[in-house]
């Protein structure tokens, strides 16, 4: 088995005229790579009618509906994170309940509000109650604000994780930009933070540093928007690790973090 814990799909109400091709490409590449489950999110309208990282409640709902439709169309391959904007607390909590009840298996927090902000607490409480993980978009060592997002870094995610020790948090795309060494230092001793290996970054030494920081038990495989780099990191890890340890990263850690019935066996 191979579980991609960080995937995205598009839909008709996004700026991408090629959204069908991109979705099809992900599934086709997934077949070649051997991905058993794409655990995906849709960030509202991806900028079409509200900003990607600050999606309006209406776009959040539309994006989640599109993902639920994809999950129904590909029940053997696609699983969903419910994406929410924590600035709209009531809507976010209602959306989480609605989408988890409909079969989604996790919560996606992008960059609408800093990870250590109290507005994330009611979402974390719901994650604990429903026993689902939270995938938090991270800018590895954010030294300043970046346009278009209120990005968080690992230190800010750690603050949230300390407040909610019974929730599994996934630090998104360690290879997704920024100083990954800073993140790995920050999360080393925070046992309820898992590191998602996705992102376009394929730096020599990064995977060794991940193993040294959090160990093989807290690594999750993912691709995000570059599946070639995801596959490369998997290939390298399989050269580094024993087959048993590689299985942990491929799927067993994910199977432990997500709800028990989230994935079908091969």
């Amino acid at each position, binding site marked *: 088995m191979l579980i991609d814990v960080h995937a995205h799909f598009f839909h008709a109400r996004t700026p991408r005229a090629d959204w069908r091709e991109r979705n099809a490409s992900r599934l086709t590449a997934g077949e070649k790579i051997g991905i058993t489950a794409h655990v995906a999110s849709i960030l509202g309208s991806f900028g079409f009618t509200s900003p990607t990282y600050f999606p309006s409640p209406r776009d959040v709902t539309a994006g989640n509906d599109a993902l639920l439709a994809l999950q129904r169309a590909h029940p053997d391959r696609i699983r969903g994170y419910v994406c929410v904007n924590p600035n709209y607390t009531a809507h976010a909590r209602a959306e989480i309940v609605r989408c988890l009840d409909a079969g989604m298996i996790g919560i996606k927090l992008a960059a609408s509000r800093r990870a250590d902000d109290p507005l994330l607490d009611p979402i974390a409480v719901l994650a604990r109650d429903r026993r689902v993980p939270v995938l938090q978009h991270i800018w590895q060592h954010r030294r300043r604000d970046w346009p278009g997002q209120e990005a968080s870094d690992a230190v800010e995610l750690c603050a949230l994780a300390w407040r909610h020790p019974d929730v599994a948090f996934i630090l998104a795309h360690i290879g997704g930009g920024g100083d990954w060494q800073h993140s790995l230092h920050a999360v080393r001793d925070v046992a309820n933070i898992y590191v998602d290996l996705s992102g376009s*970054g394929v730096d*020599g030494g990064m995977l060794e540093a991940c193993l040294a920081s959090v160990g093989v038990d807290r690594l999750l495989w993912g691709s995000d928007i570059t*599946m070639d*780099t995801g596959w490369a990191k998997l290939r390298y890890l399989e050269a580094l690790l024993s087959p048993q340890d590689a299985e942990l990263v491929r799927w067993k850690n994910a199977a432990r973090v997500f709800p028990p019935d989230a994935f079908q066996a091969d």
Partner: protein
Amino acid sequence: MPRIDCNAFLGAYPWRKVPGTSPDGLLQALGRTKIDVAWVTHLPGLFWRDPTEGNAWLYETARKEKRFKPVPTLHPALPSWERVLADAVTAKAPAVRCDPLYLGLDPAGGEMRALATACGAARMPLMLAVRLEDGRQRHPNDRVAELPAAAVRALIRSDRAVRLLVTHADHSFIEEVHFGSTPDEARRIWWDISWIWGPPEDHLARLLDTIGTDRFVFGTGQPLRLPETSVAKLDLLDLSPERRRAIECDNLQALAVA
């Protein structure tokens, strides 16, 4: 047919710890990824005031290991740089490299144009990197700008014989240069695939369709980047054996012997 990596380095990187930078380390990576030959540059030298001081070690290392082909570094603002180019020709180097911004040079200025002309006359490909690392993660003191696409257009126009091998370029950079050049100019530029995205964005597939297989070569940027990436992105394409061989070998061999 061998798989040739045109974009590999030997030696330590000054900005962070990188494993596998020794000749033995690189050989292990070549074995792991079934790469037969690597065109190698002395990595620390890129950051030295006189980068050519790394070339002697590079030649010696390549003499001992047939799988390494030396790509020595030039600095066209240092006296007697022409002799460094002549040495590269004598050593049958497949290319020479110059990363002008790391040397504090105008990337399309007089020194670089003189180098382009000399490389054209010597029938020696000139290699340039757009970047070595993702700009979002570089060391706070690593502030060298990335190579601009305009500089590549200016260099290819500066001499009718110069041939450029550009590494670490993304799809938009490549498209800007390719479609901002005449067909004759574009035919004298080769691009390594190390920084081009595969699925689901499918930038590499699109470039092979719009620009053509003959302009692309296999490169990895190892050991700064995992060489598995370039292999994986080819494995994810539905390429005929002939087109794949062109990227992994034939195009580079044609470039080196032209």
